[in-house]
């Protein structure tokens, strides 16, 4: 084998050995480095762009609010009374802060739920006459505005529009009146069952059934009714504080959504369950 002395001698001999290449290699090396840098930067730019596009699409997909205009048979449009001036209800009803908040923005008596050209059943007509008579006796209201009274109207409705997207994306102060949710009336069938129950259980049951008895139409019931409707959508409990008002027979409570959100997945799940 090679002895250590020879090894050391060779190592020492070649330690500082230098040689000059025949050509200057730096321009070629520099261009290769720059090219690889450009490719890398280009690649990073493409990846960044692709990632940004993906993020934007993802956000758009998440933020896209499903159309809940077909949330089952509880939603149906009924034109609200435009002859009565809305009365502001002072209470705010904070709910689950992460998911939904319902704010009572309007407490409105509705006396023209039944259109003028609709022929009322006899007992309903009698009730209407009775209501008119009461008002006439009190002699303080404009009788022309009294077109219906305490009547079991056929369908329960939540009037809702437009999409929840606005409600979620915008501050409540910027919502338009069209984002109101209005609880107007229950179904006839529902009235029969509700009447057999006591008030508290009625509320509970009303909530679970998402039907509302016009006879039991208090602010409390209305809120529970709406909250339940939202719960079905959001699949999340909504707690509500409420203020009850006594006295009037037919009322409309208007609500609007605040910070309400629902994912597409949740919405699809609910729709699947419903179907």
């Amino acid at each position, binding site marked *: 084998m*090679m002895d250590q002395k020879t090894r050391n001698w*060779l190592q020492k001999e070649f330690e500082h050995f*230098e040689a000059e290449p025949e050509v200057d*290699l730096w321009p070629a090396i520099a261009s290769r480095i720059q090219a690889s840098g450009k490719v890398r930067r280009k690649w990073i730019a493409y990846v960044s762009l692709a990632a940004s596009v993906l993020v934007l699409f993802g956000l758009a997909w998440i933020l896209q609010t499903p159309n809940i205009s077909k949330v089952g048979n509880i939603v149906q449009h009924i034109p609200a009374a435009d002859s009565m001036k809305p009365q502001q209800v002072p209470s705010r009803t904070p709910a689950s802060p992460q998911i939904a908040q319902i704010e009572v923005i309007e407490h409105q008596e509705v006396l023209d739920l039944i259109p003028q050209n609709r022929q009322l059943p006899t007992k309903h007509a009698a009730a209407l006459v009775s209501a008119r008579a009461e008002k006439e006796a009190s002699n303080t209201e404009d009788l022309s505005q009294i077109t219906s009274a305490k009547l079991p109207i056929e369908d329960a409705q939540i009037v809702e529009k437009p999409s929840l997207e606005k409600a979620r994306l915008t501050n409540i102060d910027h919502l338009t009146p069209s984002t109101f949710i209005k609880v107007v009336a229950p179904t006839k069938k529902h009235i029969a069952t509700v009447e057999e129950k006591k008030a508290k259980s009625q509320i509970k049951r009303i909530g679970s059934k998402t039907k509302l008895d016009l006879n039991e139409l208090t602010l409390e019931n209305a809120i529970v009714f709406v909250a339940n409707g939202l719960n079905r959508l959001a699949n999340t409990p909504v707690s509500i504080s409420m203020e009850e008002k006594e006295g009037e027979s037919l009322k409309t409570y208007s609500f609007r959504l605040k910070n309400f959100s629902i994912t597409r997945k949740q919405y699809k799940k609910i729709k699947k369950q419903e179907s």
Partner: protein
Amino acid sequence: MLHLYPEAELVEGCQREQADYQRALYKQYYRKMYAICLRYTDNSDDAQDILQEGFIKVFKHIKKFLSQGSLEGWIRRIMIHTSIEHYRRKSRYFMVDINEAKGIELNTDALSNLSRNEILMLVQKLPAGYRTVFNLYAIEGYSHKEISLMLNISIGTSKSQLSRAKGLLRSQIGQMDLKATGC
């Protein structure tokens, strides 16, 4: 006029991919590295290719250099590995597995009469496998175990390659002596 930077500054500049520092680093080390490349090749064209590839690797991977060892040592290792890769690509039978190692000796006396360029010329004439092992063992100072790991060969093969390299060098030195004496 080439500006000489301190090593730490040079490394930082190259890590920031600043052309001035990259050029300075090249200018500072390219002669030494070219000499190494020449030892591992049998012609200057290949040596220049290896030098170019090696420096591109250096600039590409300099962010991994942690300043724990010397920069020159790190660049030297890159050049050596680039040389090995170059001949692996070039020759399918870069390293023939020979397990017999004959005890051929190469004395300092025989080498000391030669200049560095003459030794380099003799080393370049060796077959690629012999040359590589000879360079790694005799000049770089690696052990046979390290060489076996670097070249992915057995320790016995490393020893036999070295032995044959020394044998060839001895015969070449003998021929040179004969030519010199005119016999």
